[in-house]
């Protein structure tokens, strides 16, 4: 990949490693996120996504490696230009929605009146105006999440770091959020989000990075990745004997609904199979290269994504052995 686009680099990780006691959460991770892109950090639970994002925010210090965010070391000062929505996101339950948002704007460097103005604008935009004077504990979970999102973007950050932003939202609000994320990108904001939901990543991301067991296993432009992965899979529908499918090029055969999916050996030429079929006199109704879904690529590289991995990050619920 090109090391920096025309606009430069928003985030750069260089050999970053983070250990919690004996457990390695992130292992010599290199990452480069160009400005203005929507970047997806994918991986199963417990693979080190959240730890990576926390390192970018300066909340955790890496044990080794170098981190650069918007051209400098991460930390509170840098974060005035960053919008961060952590996975563990709560609210001050007794606070009124408006007061909470003004407070969040203030700690990110906005003046009081400006924070209030933007708060009311955003509440209006997300249909929450009538809730402005309610305590946050009166809000539904989805509404709370919208409020948290407003708090994340109130100071109009150059870089958005969202940890599992879609989890807990109903489909309608997921769509609202997707729309807003696209809008931010159109204005030149760099967006990095982590998710284990491949659908969103597939729709939104320009680049994806796949982490599994603390290591990066894939880092690519999504379109190129799909094109590359397409070579390996052929869907066939035919009538007649299936002997022609067997050959040195094919490593696996799988029935998927009406079709049969052939996995090809790397570098194999699918034309050879097609020629064999024609020669065998089989009537071939369909023979095409399948564009794999991100989910399949994910599984190919990292195994089933939904499998619960060992969760040993500080907030992961497991607790236990954690160093600062």
């Amino acid at each position: 990949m090109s090391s920096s686009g025309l606009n430069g680099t928003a985030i750069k990780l260089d050999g970053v490693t983070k250990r919690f006691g004996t457990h390695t959460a992130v292992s010599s991770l290199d990452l480069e996120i160009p400005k203005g892109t929507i970047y997806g950090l994918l991986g199963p639970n417990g693979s080190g996504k959240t730890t990576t994002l926390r390192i970018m925010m300066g909340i955790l210090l890496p044990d080794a490696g170098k981190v650069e965010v918007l051209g400098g070391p991460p930390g509170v000062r840098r974060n005035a230009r960053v919008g961060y929505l952590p996975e563990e996101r709560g609210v001050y339950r007794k606070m009124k929605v408006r007061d909470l948002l003004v407070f969040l704007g203030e700690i990110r460097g906005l003046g009081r009146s400006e924070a209030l103005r933007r708060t009311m604008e955003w509440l209006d935009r997300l249909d929450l105006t009538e809730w402005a004077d309610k305590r946050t504990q009166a809000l539904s979970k989805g509404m709370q999440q919208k409020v948290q999102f407003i708090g994340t973007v109130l100071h109009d950050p150059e870089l958005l770091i969202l940890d599992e932003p879609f989890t807990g939202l109903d489909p309608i609000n997921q769509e609202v959020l997707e729309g807003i994320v696209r809008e931010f990108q159109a204005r030149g904001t760099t967006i990095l989000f982590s998710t284990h939901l491949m659908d969103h990543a597939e729709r939104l991301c320009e680049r994806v990075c796949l982490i599994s067991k603390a290591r990066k296993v894939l880092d690519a432009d999504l379109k190129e990745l799909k094109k590359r992965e397409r070579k390996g899979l052929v869907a066939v529908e035919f009538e007649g004997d299936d002997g022609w499918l067997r050959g040195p090029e094919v490593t696996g055969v799988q029935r998927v609904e009406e079709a049969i999916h052939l996995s090809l050996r790397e570098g194999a030429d699918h034309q050879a199979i097609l020629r064999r079929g024609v020669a065998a006199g089989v009537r071939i109704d369909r023979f095409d290269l399948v564009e794999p879904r991100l989910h399949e690529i994910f599984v190919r590289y990292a195994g089933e994504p939904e499998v619960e991995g060992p969760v040993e990050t500080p907030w992961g619920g497991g607790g236990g052995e954690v160093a600062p």
Partner: protein
Amino acid sequence: MRTLRAVIRREYLQRVKSKWFVFSTLGAPLFFIGAAVVPILYETGQEETRRSIALIDETGLLASRVEPRLKEAGFTVKVVPPGWEDSLKVQALEGDLGGYMVLDEDALARGHMTYFGPQGPGAIRGMTMRGAVVQSALEVRLAEVGAEVDLEALFRGGTMDLRIFDEEMVGATEDEPEFIGAFAGALLLYMVVLMYAAAVMRAALEEKTGRIVEILISSVRPWELMLGKIIGVGSVGLTQLAVWVLCGSLALTLGLPAMAAAQPELVDPEAIAQALPGVGLLALFLALFLGGYFLYAALYAAVGSMCSTEEEAQQAQFPVIFLLIGPILFLLPIMENPNAPWAVVASMVPFFSPVLLYARAGAGAIPLWQIGASLTFLYLGVLGVAWVAGRIYRVGILMQGKRPTLPELWRWVKEA
């Protein structure tokens, strides 16, 4: 600075605007005012006549002494010669008189009297009446043997002047120590420090249980968050104390005279004035409150940060409470002996000095240099504890799950 200010303001306003704050801040003085005012209203209303009594003195010696004593205590007294009992009974039944007392030889011999009325005089009034008779009887007896005695002073319990001398056997006259004031002040210090410092623990916990800490910590430095909480909650405490002090001084300047007029046997303005601390002690109180509060608030912030639930915090705060209660156990011995070497040393220890230094200063004369040294140690202690607590806080607020062991805590302090 802007973030620190925002944290302080949020912490302060959230608390001051809460119903619980309004209730406890205004409720406490209202309760005390009520406790003072209700008897007055009761008294001035229907009870007026019960303080109006007649006195029949069969000895001929006591009336002139009993009458002024009772008048001073707020009674209306008529001295009536024997033989008018029936008329007095009619007056009492018509409500013009509470009743009448009869003093005979027994009064002189053993302070005995008989009271006649449609109802008794009431416990407190009865006590006042007996006291007046006993003092008068003693006065008569002492006069018979030619002794001149200030009975009022004797009955009040006497007074003490202090002459403290040093190695050269010279020294100055000191004020008489006011034990009750010193004891109450030290206890009050203990309570307010405990109350507000513990509130800081709950504030630190709120962010963890509410899972909002990670949102904050990306924009606020941990020490800013901790300091903001301590200052915010402390300001709430000062606000509350200010309201109470204001109510207290209003009660003293306006309420007390009114009460003394209405219920003289209950209120002795002189004794109350004596129990009040002077300006010096008040300043010391404030300095010790601030130092003690910051010291314990930092400790409590650290405790709150290392726990995940309210129940856990209740247990984890025990060592801190122990530090705070410790000096209370030594309060009485130290007030008995405020200048014993161990008392001097104990009042220099930052964790103990808020309570013990005040007790010593209130209970007797202590050298100014000791106050200076103790305050210096206290404020140095605040800096040291804040430094350690800040490091624990920084790691702790991001932890979820099991509480750290002591070695782990030590590692946090070293590595943070």
